[in-house]
């Protein structure tokens, strides 16, 4: 069990934050291109799911699995998107992503008058708090 990486996007598709922990493979794109591709994929999955759904739904897309990783997705009502990739055996991290939003993002980014809306986060305290929170998660085990 491990956490690979975390992306935070705002509602316009700007990548506010990215960090990786135990990532083994890189996509071969520049980081900016990768953010665009990730946001585009999430955006398309959302529209795909809303058209494909045979029944009415509340939250829509929450996660997908491939043979090697699981992508978890959480969107706030204001359009902030939290995307975390973990190993397959992590069941659901909805509460953890919600915690990152409410206790870390709101506290250290939204309430920080120096951080600008819609700009990548450069708050040092947010980064360290997030890093120690992720490293403290029960399913975060450093692999070699």
């Amino acid at each position, binding site marked *: 069990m491990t956490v690979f990486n975390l992306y935070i996007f705002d509602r316009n598709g700007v990548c506010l934050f990215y960090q990786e922990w135990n990532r083994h493979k890189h*996509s071969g794109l520049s980081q900016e291109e990768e953010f665009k591709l990730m946001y585009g994929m999430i955006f398309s999955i959302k529209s795909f799911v809303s058209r*494909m*759904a*045979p029944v009415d*739904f509340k939250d829509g897309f929450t996660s*997908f699995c491939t043979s*090697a990783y699981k992508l978890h997705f959480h969107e706030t009502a204001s359009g902030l998107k939290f995307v975390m990739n973990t190993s397959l055996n992590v069941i659901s991290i909805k509460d953890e992503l919600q915690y990152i939003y409410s206790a870390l993002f709101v506290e250290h980014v939204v309430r920080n008058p120096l951080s600008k809306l819609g700009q990548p986060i450069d708050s040092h305290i947010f980064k360290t708090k997030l890093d120690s929170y992720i490293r403290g998660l029960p399913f975060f085990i450093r692999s070699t």
Partner: protein
Amino acid sequence: MTIYSVYVINRAGGLIYQMDHTMPKTEVEKTFSFPLELTLKIYDERVVVSFGQRDGIKVGHTILGINGELVRGRQLEDGRDVLEMIANPDNYPIAIKFGRPKLSTNERIMLASMFHSLYAIGCQLSPEMKSSGIQVLETDSFKLHCLQTHTGIKLIILADPRQGGVDALLRKISEVYADFALKNPFYSIDMPIRCDLFETNLQAAVESSERSGMYGAGI
């Protein structure tokens, strides 16, 4: 516990087979007086609810019928425009039927090729080595299961999130595809599947899986 539908996509991302197994009814009919408490808009040549959820009518539902008459796109069958009818106070009280829009064949083909590229992107953005594309896509109301065979055909099942035994069903369907579509001398590869035997066997496989999956064969 239900299996909603099955899709088969060829190597190029073309939809070659699609079957709806159980489609839950989401229709609501209600009589309104003037003015209408819902906000409607035209989206994709359909009249869609954009604001004002009430009485089981959800945002995203389209107008399916007015006063018992069917609605085609943004017009009634006799050519009257839906929005004009709703804007005219003389037509009230008015009974409007709302529901989830049914997908047209063209939309299904588009969605299938969209999934084909999402599958590839999911593979490219992997943080781990040797990842496949999307195998299970979860939402709170349904789960999409996808199996890519060695020959590149994608089999997709939309099912209830609690439905068990879907992986076994996917393998069964690939068997049915190999036996009754590929071995049919009149079937040309990568073309839409129109084989009766394929259809009946697929139907039987889905039904038996639905029955056995009821008892919770796991996830």
